[in-house]
């Protein structure tokens, strides 16, 4: 049994992590921020990107003197992407670890139970990845999502694609989505916005726990739609559809996925840069954003982790924005009272972050941001904003998408 004990000890060492260490604030006690993240399981790629974003923010805030002079200490626990474990983690963080503040986990699926758990203790849940409607429909007073609600994500895309001249507008469209609470509302909103302006040739929902997408993708390919709207939560789903499409000798003229292509290098390294060319994705931030706060963060990120601005995962900015929002609330309220922080964040104030302005409505939605659509272009080497078309930073959409690998 010594071996089992050794293994279990290793497991504990691998599945828990402490946060960024404070620089030098010997006089004041540290402020502990409790976070549950998916460091393993289905959302691990996003969870670890969030961890980087939170740690980058903690490092910056500590370098600037901490929160009201207190060094920030992150207390991060892994929830293995489980909606059950995430609740246990926040209960432990609050009642055992006695954290002062809480930041959100990754995904709508985990944010809702997590927010309900911390609400019982009166804690504010500032988060960046719980943008699905189910989080806001619960009308919880303590949730604050710093990212644009996902339901609106595809609105600029819908507006653009339906406004194309008849000759270049897709004649047919296929909606295919995971039944995840993040993806389905996004796809359904796009479907209602596009309506009958483009002929719908299919709508398929597949289970979020699916691991074999080949036959589903084949169904889409056989319908040969001009445009495909894919409700995906991660890179493997998008990658599987792309591979199946190529194997079926089918290339949609327009292909947009709700998540996956926004993960920078993590996406292009999995699917190949040439295949990524022409793929679109909605988001409210990208690495080459002209927002000065964003540029500063991106420069720090590249200094610490390497890479390029185009390759920075949008999760980093979401997590960083969570920290910025909480820091603004702490500064404005002059302390760490969660009741005062909740009240302040509901006051209608606009907080500048790397993602742009953050302003919450009564259910914690941030409606101050704009939805954008991005596209991989130039052989999958650049990731650019393509709409809203009226935005000065948008470039022309690459249409139609090049054949796979070209």
């Amino acid at each position, binding site marked *: *049994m*010594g*071996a*089992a004990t050794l*293994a*279990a000890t*290793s*497991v504990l060492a*691998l*599945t828990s992590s402490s946060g960024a260490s404070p620089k030098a604030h010997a006089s004041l006690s540290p402020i502990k921020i409790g976070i549950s993240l998916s460091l*393993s*399981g*289905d959302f*691990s*790629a996003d*969870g*670890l990107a969030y961890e980087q974003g939170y740690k980058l923010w903690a490092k910056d805030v500590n370098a600037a003197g901490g929160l009201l002079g207190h060094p920030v200490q992150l207390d991060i626990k892994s929830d*293995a*992407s489980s909606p059950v474990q995430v609740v246990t983690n926040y209960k432990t963080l609050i009642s055992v670890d006695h954290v002062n503040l809480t930041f959100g986990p990754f995904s709508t699926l985990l944010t809702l139970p997590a927010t309900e758990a911390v609400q019982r203790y009166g804690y504010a849940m500032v988060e960046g990845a719980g943008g699905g409607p189910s989080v806001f429909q619960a009308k919880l007073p303590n949730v604050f999502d710093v990212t644009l609600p996902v339901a609106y994500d595809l609105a600029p895309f819908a507006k653009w694609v339906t406004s194309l001249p008849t000759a270049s507008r897709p004649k047919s469209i296929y909606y295919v989505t995971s*039944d995840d609470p993040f993806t389905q509302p996004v796809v359904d909103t796009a479907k209602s916005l596009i309506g009958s302006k483009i002929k719908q040739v299919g709508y*398929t*929902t*597949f*289970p979020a*726990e*699916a*691991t*074999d997408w*080949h*036959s*589903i993708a*084949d*169904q889409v390919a056989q319908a040969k739609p001009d445009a495909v709207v894919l409700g995906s939560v*991660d*890179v*493997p789903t998008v*990658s*599987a559809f792309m*591979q199946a499409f*190529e*194997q*079926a*000798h089918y290339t949609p003229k327009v292909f947009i996925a709700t998540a996956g292509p926004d*993960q920078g*290098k*993590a996406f292009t*390294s*999995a*699917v*190949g840069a040439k295949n990524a060319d022409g793929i679109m994705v909605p988001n409210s931030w990208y690495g080459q954003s002209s927002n000065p706060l964003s540029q500063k963060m991106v420069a720090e990120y590249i200094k610490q982790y390497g890479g390029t601005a185009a390759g920075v995962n949008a999760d980093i900015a979401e997590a960083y924005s969570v920290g910025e929002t909480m820091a603004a609330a702490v500064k404005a309220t002059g302390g760490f009272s969660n009741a005062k922080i909740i009240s302040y964040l509901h006051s209608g104030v606009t907080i500048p972050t790397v993602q742009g302005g953050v302003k919450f409505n009564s259910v914690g939605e941030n409606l101050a941001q704009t939805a954008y659509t991005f596209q991989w272009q130039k052989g999958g080497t650049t990731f650019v904003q393509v709409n809203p078309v009226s935005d000065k930073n948008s470039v022309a959409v690459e249409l139609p998408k090049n054949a*796979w*690998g070209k």
Partner: protein
Amino acid sequence: MVHALIDGVLTGSVYALMATGLTLIFGVMDIINVAQGIFVILGAYLSYTLQVHFGIDLFAGLLITIPIMFVVGIVIERIFLSRLKGPEKTAMSILVTYAISLVIEGLLNEIFTVNNVQLNASYVNKSFPLFGIYFPYIYLFGFVLAVVLLGSLYYMLYRTRFGASIRASLADQAAAALVGIDVKKVSTICFGIGIAVTAAGGMIFGATNAFNASTSYDLISRLLTIIVLGGMGSLAGALVAGILMVTLEDLVGVLWSPIWSTMSFFIVLVIVLSFRPQGLFGKQSARVA
């Protein structure tokens, strides 16, 4: 429908190959190896390393990765699993192999990061037309590989002296020892074989799916389901259940809706277990069929 049927058989055979190691290990050792999923991913990462850093073709690389995974299996069995004894051996094996799985997952995340990768080769995204439908070469190659490896396993079990030792150890360990069979050695080699086949399964899986270390969680739940339906310890059961699972899911997805595809398999599982608790091919006294 024909397309879904053929897809199901081709893909299901690869799942059967991955599940074979799991069922062999349980059949001979009474060990439920919940680390089988991470071993599949480890096998995929080995193929990835050979391909990206040494330019070795995915199939040729199996000549290297299968022996490596065999040795990994032997080492893990010797260090961790051979110490498990007594009536709680099977239950404890779940805990120990889960711990092994988490440690390997952590190491893979450190080495390869959590970014998803996918194996690539000139034939991975290519397909051939048949009756107006395109079939990917990689699924066909995976099917052939699975048939060859499963056939080899069958040959070893039923046509070799070592296979007879395995079956004797399974039937009665004490009696096997009395007739001169080194039961400990047989168990160790069986575990090595069970892990070695994950190299092949992992390669095919990695060529058809983007993966990272956490993908193992999805895999192990499917592999366990396959061997429960097929019968714990039955190679034939793993083969039939693997193909049945994917084919049924594909057919339900095409004829009805993908949303019910996973559920349909579990309905079949519940029905089968209601009438045959030991699974389709499981036996009470001798588990390798």
